[in-house]
């Protein structure tokens, strides 16, 4: 029968190709003129942005992605000493201490910042003649009953940022009371950002039931840039006083075979050209003071003057306790 032959031949082909590709590839692992940047799935740098780096140093940049930030850190810790890459992109201040404790990195520096803020659906409030909330306190006000959707802080990084923001604002002893009043006011908790923003939120593609959502300070410009039809102003806006500052770090992984290239790549990531490419490709703000922001960002993105923030060491020390008491209140 034909079928047998096809099956046997294809099986052999696959096995041999697998073997040959493995033997040819083991050597590339230690190629000196390559540097591997390990990043979360959402890391989508501007096309060709690393060409200048290769031209200047002769080293090719290989971007390797694997999971979200949490997965990335967990994997980096599991593979400590024998890392999957040379440079790690995407640790944030809520997870930094975990990496420090595991002694993952030989060096690290802040590379970008962003804010986690409550966004609102402008049209929803305008059409009902209701003023959008202005503060965290407002969110617990009966005027805004059953309007807010946030994310599970255990599973979602904006969810965690929002919880940490409330802790920064109300203090380690009083935030629980605030969350009890949020619960009484009908806050809805979604498992992740995608569900909250694209399904539950009324202001984006999903047309859900909730006109208030926990998202990013850069979400409004993203709505303009990726609108289905060109629009001048975003359909959403940010409540500035609710913003929690998230800082992302880039670091050289311990055990890298290319410490020199790793160092070069990190300084390239902190240099003006790359920093200026970040807002429109990664929707984060540069840390380099010499980098200028694109128009879209100066117009529609919010950079709060005094964002809520917490010390990474504080976060690491209390994260589990806070998450557990949050679960006790909400679940």
């Amino acid at each position, binding site marked *: *029968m034909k079928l047998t032959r096809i099956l046997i031949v294809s099986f052999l082909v696959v096995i041999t190709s697998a073997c040959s590709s493995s033997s040819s590839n083991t050597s590339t692992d230690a190629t000196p003129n390559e540097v591997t940047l390990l990043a979360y799935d959402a890391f989508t740098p501007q096309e060709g942005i690393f060409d200048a780096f290769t031209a200047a140093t002769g080293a090719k940049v290989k971007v390797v992605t694997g999971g979200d930030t949490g997965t990335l850190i967990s994997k980096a810790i599991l593979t400590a000493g024998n890392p999957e890459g040379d440079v790690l992109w995407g640790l944030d201040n809520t997870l930094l201490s975990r990496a420090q404790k595991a002694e993952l990195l030989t060096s690290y520096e802040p590379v970008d910042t962003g804010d986690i803020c409550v966004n609102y659906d402008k049209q929803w409030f305008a059409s009902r003649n209701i003023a959008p909330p202005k503060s965290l306190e407002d969110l617990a006000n009966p005027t805004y009953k059953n309007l807010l959707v946030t994310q599970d802080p255990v599973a979602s990084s904006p969810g965690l940022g929002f919880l940490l923001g409330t802790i920064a604002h109300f203090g380690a002893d009083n935030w629980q009371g605030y969350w009890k009043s949020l619960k009484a006011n009908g806050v809805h908790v979604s498992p992740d950002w995608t569900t909250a923003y694209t399904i539950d939120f009324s202001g984006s593609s999903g047309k859900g039931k909730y006109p208030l959502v926990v998202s990013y300070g850069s979400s409004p410009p993203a709505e303009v840039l990726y609108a289905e039809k060109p629009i001048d102003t975003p359909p959403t806006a940010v409540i500035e006083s609710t913003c929690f500052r998230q800082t992302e770090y880039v670091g050289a992984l311990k055990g890298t075979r290319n410490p020199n290239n790793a160092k070069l790549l990190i300084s390239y990531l902190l240099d003006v050209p790359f920093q200026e490419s970040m807002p429109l490709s990664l929707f984060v703000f540069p840390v380099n003071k010499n980098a200028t922001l694109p128009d879209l960002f100066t117009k529609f993105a919010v950079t709060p003057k005094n964002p809520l923030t917490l010390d990474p060491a504080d976060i690491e020390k209390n994260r589990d306790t806070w998450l557990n008491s949050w679960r006790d209140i909400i679940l």
Partner: protein
Amino acid sequence: MAELMERHHPVSKTKTLLIAPVVFMSVFFVAPVTNSILRYFRFSEFGNVLGNHSLRGVAWFSMWQALISTLFTLVIALPATWALSRFTFPGVRLVRGVLTAPFVLPAVVVAAGVLAITDSRGVVPVIWAHVVFNMSVILRIVGPRWAMVNLRLEHAAATLGARPSRTFSLVVWPQISDAVISAATLVFIFCFTSFGVIAILGGVSRRTLESEIFTQAVRLGNTETATALAVLQAVIICTVIFIARQSSRPNSTSLHVSAPQPLRTKPRHRNTPLLISVTAVVIVASPLLATIYRSLVVNNQFSFSAWRTIFSGSLPALSVSPQLVITTSLVFAIIAACICVPLALLVVTTSAPRALFSLPLAISAATLGIGLIITFNTSPYAWRSERWFIPVIHAVIALPLVIRALEPAVRAIPTSFRNASATLGASPIATWRHVELPLLKPALLRATGLSMAISLGEFGATSFLSRSGSTTLPIAIAQLLGRPGVATQQAGFALAALMVLVTVGVMSRA
């Protein structure tokens, strides 16, 4: 059952053939999982987990929601299986395609569809989504078997005065029961380890063991707690598989038929199969239609722009072009099927230790993922970020399901055929090629479709592996839906809708 196989295939050359699947499983599954468990399993932590009230609650919820989901799936899927494997009517292939397609879809897509219709969260939407996902498991495993049940036996029973219910319980059920039990076991395991559906539709307070394993391993970095939970989950699943095997053993009789029955074109009660099919299609297709709707309609306006983007444009939210994502996924699916189907065939036609090949069902994707990255990390086995590694792991994950899809059909071939062929002077290989293989062809095609489907939809282990440029469809969809901007999200739904359409196409041919 092992004795049964021996009786069918006493030839010793089968022993040598067995080496391939056993080596494959040992290298790509047993070694990494063992490595991960040896490194992170602590008896003390296992004790803590068993003593933890809230974690016991998680295990209990996983169990009862899975039982109820399995019952509902059977109630809806079995009549549909009967209708589709016994009768033919215009569009029967399309119906089969629609009913089997959701299996490959990312949970967020089906869940968004269900949510658009129910508008609420809780156990009911979860069960609905589980029925939608698992309909195909029953259809694919029970379907080929039911098609082989000799119609003449039923006619004889009817002629002798048996009512349809009696004919079913005395004639049909004994011949299909082991396939049904095998399929129901799988459905139970899938619902028990459900992750995405529970997260989106169950609300935050609903957790399964699988979602808790991910939370502990990935979010909280408690690898030891995660491993203890994974071992607990494996023990429960192995127990279920064992019980199911025990209860299916007495019924496994060889079928008294020669080949798949020609489908009847004019049933007596013409409307019943049609009605059953329509009901099943409505239940399954509505969330799929919601996906297609969301890829085409934005702000109450119809537009093909998202579809144009995925076929010819590029998306800033993806590091590679959507066209490359589609190609990558298809190539991976084909490679995975080329590895998986021949191995599965070797396993079912020889006296392989079945337990070994059921193991991937019991092991959490997180455990396998962790095992892979800590095992294949040194030269010459530094495969963890190799491109070919992904379809190989897809084949590992698909293997237990493909074996189950093939097994009933292989066991249904009567010994007498083989004996007759041998008596007439045919060599065992000639017998296999000219007698057994033609009989197995429909089951093999379906197994290939199933393997490709699993590869296309696999998310858990793949998302754990690091990739450079080799983004698969479910990961691309998750990335697109995970970004603000209506156009980005619409492209995500268009990719999901494309998956629906491709799978409906593939499944209606297989």
